[in-house]
């Protein structure tokens, strides 16, 4: 390890030996790990908050009697044997989700009626007040952390140079080429691994430019205070109940991103990938077979 040269200047050393390349700036690494903590708590507290009213609607409003506006609900019914069953409905589709959604095993080992199971929520017990306190604290962390990230990313050109797809990268053939490479688990080697390819740009850029801003915009829209000050934002999102629905869907997409992201890190070489997000240094292996 100690013999691997470090090329912080971005220049390729003349030799064909592996070397460490400075991949992530301090700002990227810091904001990444702050985001990991913030988003973990936001997801857990978010599900606890959702459990206070495990139903979603479209429009400006929605409550128990508004069946025509409700598109998702997680509930429980007793079956013929008197056993509680968890039922999740999305649009016209009803699924028995006992064990996970609607009815799940509580911390005392007994079945309990709860939207999302206690292992997925923070706190693990139903506690709307605490979940809200923590959710809003980490919402502030996410926003301030995001402002630092965007500020540095704009100033250094990181956002434009590294994350924004080039027009030519958006060609169907290029996208298809990258999908095939991913499907074969063939990850770029050597100098090619120094830049993001189109699927990475779509995943990272989509999260940075679309999902997280939408998360914050829909979150703000649920606040009655912001609803007064920025009523245009609530209207843009189709009303408060719609904003709550989009907040939930976007959170699910963020979870999807995290799953794919972690999976790719594991497949691409977790030691090198995680090191590059901690120390900044990423090992470049030459493309030529040794």
């Amino acid at each position, binding site marked *: *390890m100690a013999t691997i040269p470090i090329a912080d200047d971005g220049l390729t050393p003349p030799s064909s030996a592996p070397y460490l390349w400075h991949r992530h700036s301090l700002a990227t690494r810091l904001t990444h*790990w702050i985001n*990991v*903590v913030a988003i*973990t*708590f936001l997801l*857990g507290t978010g599900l606890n*908050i*959702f459990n*206070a*009213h495990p*139903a979603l*609607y479209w429009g*400006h*409003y*929605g*409550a*128990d*009697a*508004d069946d025509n506006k409700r598109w998702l609900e997680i509930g429980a019914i007793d079956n013929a044997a008197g056993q509680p069953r968890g039922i999740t409905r999305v649009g016209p589709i009803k699924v028995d989700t006992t064990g996970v959604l609607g009815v799940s095993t509580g*911390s005392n080992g007994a079945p309990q009626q709860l939207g999302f199971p*206690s*292992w*997925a*929520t*923070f*706190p*693990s*017990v139903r*506690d*709307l*007040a*605490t979940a*809200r*306190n*923590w959710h*809003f*604290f980490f*919402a*502030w962390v996410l926003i301030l952390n995001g402002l630092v990230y965007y500020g540095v990313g704009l100033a250094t050109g990181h956002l434009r140079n590294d994350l924004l797809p080039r027009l030519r990268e958006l060609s169907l053939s290029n996208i298809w080429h990258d999908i095939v490479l991913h499907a074969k688990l063939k990850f770029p080697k050597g100098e090619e691994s120094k830049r993001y390819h189109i699927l990475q740009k779509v995943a990272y850029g989509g999260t940075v430019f679309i999902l997280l801003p939408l998360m914050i915009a829909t979150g703000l829209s*649920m*606040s*009655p*205070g*912001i*609803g*007064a*000050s*920025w*009523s245009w934002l*609530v209207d843009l999102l189709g009303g*408060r*109940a719609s904003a*709550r629905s989009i907040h939930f869907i976007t959170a699910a997409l963020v979870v999807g991103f995290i799953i794919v992201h972690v999976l790719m890190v594991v497949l691409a070489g977790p*030691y090198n990938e*995680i*090191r590059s997000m*901690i*120390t900044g*240094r990423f090992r470049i292996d030459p493309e030529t077979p040794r």
Partner: protein
Amino acid sequence: MTLLTRRGLITSGALGGGLLLGACDKLTQSDGVSSLVKSAEGATYRWQRLIGRNALAREFTTADLSPVFKANGSTDPDDDAYRAHAKADFANWRLKIDGLVERPSEISIADLRRLAARTQITRHDCVEGWSAIGQWTGPQLSTLLKTVGLKPNAKYIVFHCADNYGGEISKGGAQSTGLYYESIDLVDAFHPQTILATHMNGAPLTVAHGAPCRMRIERQLGYKQAKYVMRIEAVDSFAKMELGHGGYWEDRGYEWYAGI
């Protein structure tokens, strides 16, 4: 470098795994952590006041009304004096206004209904996540406050209600009377949409919705919309009232500033 990496891996892995298993629940029991987390409320309050101190809540039309406006919380206060008033159609009921005011007063429901009223169709957002649109009519709180005259040291307006949720042990272990109460700052107290609603959807308030009058503080959540208001008190602090957080739900961990 290697050590740091491994340690980082172990730390982040343990953090994620621990959270999923709910092992971090004990974080919520730490006073230091709790006060750090609750500091976000002050930031939210100051920021919202900064960007829209006088902003008006969105008003809707009669076409937007919820077909059914959910009656939540107390729907029939279990209080003998209140029940007697309800039975007499609140003919003998008087709203008390006192505390840090120049002219403590009492006002009947008939006189309350005779004051210049504001009608507004607004969205009610419950802290649980559901919303309903209703039409509310009643005098502005500012009208009453100007009539009684606030003393210069008045900082908050407290609403004392007839409903009792039961005085269970609250977070922190102290015992409360269980009587519902709420409080707001003077920005919201003098906000044009802050009214004492005597009518909902064009009809006198029903008991389920807070008869004879309830608060509408349109830029905050449902738990601020105190029902069965019996007494309005101007104070300089609510630290010594009940459990000291300015409201029944606030005493149980919810934000005092419910604009979020």
